[in-house]
């Protein structure tokens, strides 16, 4: 079956512009996570959606970052007024229940470059 799909795969933007990153999770997966992967820094948790519950936004680095998940499926991560330090690979993952109860399935990521 289809895996987690992320688009675009690459995005180059100018400093100060807004960007939207999209994630299509595996159908039926209730949990959806966004991570940021910077060079040599591992994965940094950003935000977590579980079903229809309010998302956990505790990992978002600033108020320029926001995310939504419509209809319990597709999620969009928005970064406003991008800065050069936002350059990273943004990974989306979904799982049937939660990351500790069922495996995370990752998309291939969106590589964001802010010039």
């Amino acid at each position, binding site marked *: 079956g289809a895996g*987690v799909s992320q688009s675009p795969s690459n995005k180059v933007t100018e400093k100060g512009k807004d960007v939207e990153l999209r994630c299509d999770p595996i159908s039926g997966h209730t*949990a959806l*996570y966004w*991570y940021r992967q910077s060079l*040599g*820094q*591992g*994965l940094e*948790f950003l935000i*977590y959606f*579980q079903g229809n519950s309010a998302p*956990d936004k*505790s*990992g978002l680095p600033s108020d320029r970052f926001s995310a939504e998940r419509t209809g319990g499926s597709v999620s969009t991560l928005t970064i406003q007024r991008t800065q050069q330090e936002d350059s990273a690979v943004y*990974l989306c*993952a979904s799982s049937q229940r*939660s*990351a*500790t*109860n069922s*495996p*995370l*399935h*990752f*998309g*291939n*990521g969106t590589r964001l470059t802010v010039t």
Partner: protein
Amino acid sequence: AQSVTQPDIHITVSEGASLELRCNYSYGATPYLFWYVQSPGQGLQLLLKYFSGDTLVQGIKGFEAEFKRSQSSFNLRKPSVHWSDAAEYFCAVGERGGGADGLTFGKGTHLIIQP
């Protein structure tokens, strides 16, 4: 809060040689433990996980890992590596009882395979 340390940023082994990637964790109780692999340009794929029971767990692609409570370690091993094993390997710890940010990842170990 839990943390994960992968002491080796890079490891180089010859094809056919054995491999051990180190992972140490900090957590107040028995954690959930995971190893994920990331091939270039790809998302992360689950290799294996430890929840409870037998401390030696088998995973995909011929990998295994051993949970050693006394050493707070969960090292990944493979008896004979193949060139296709070249990738980034991430150890992760999960909090029992769930938790929004489910998994804490190490910074990764980059595995290089010499012919």
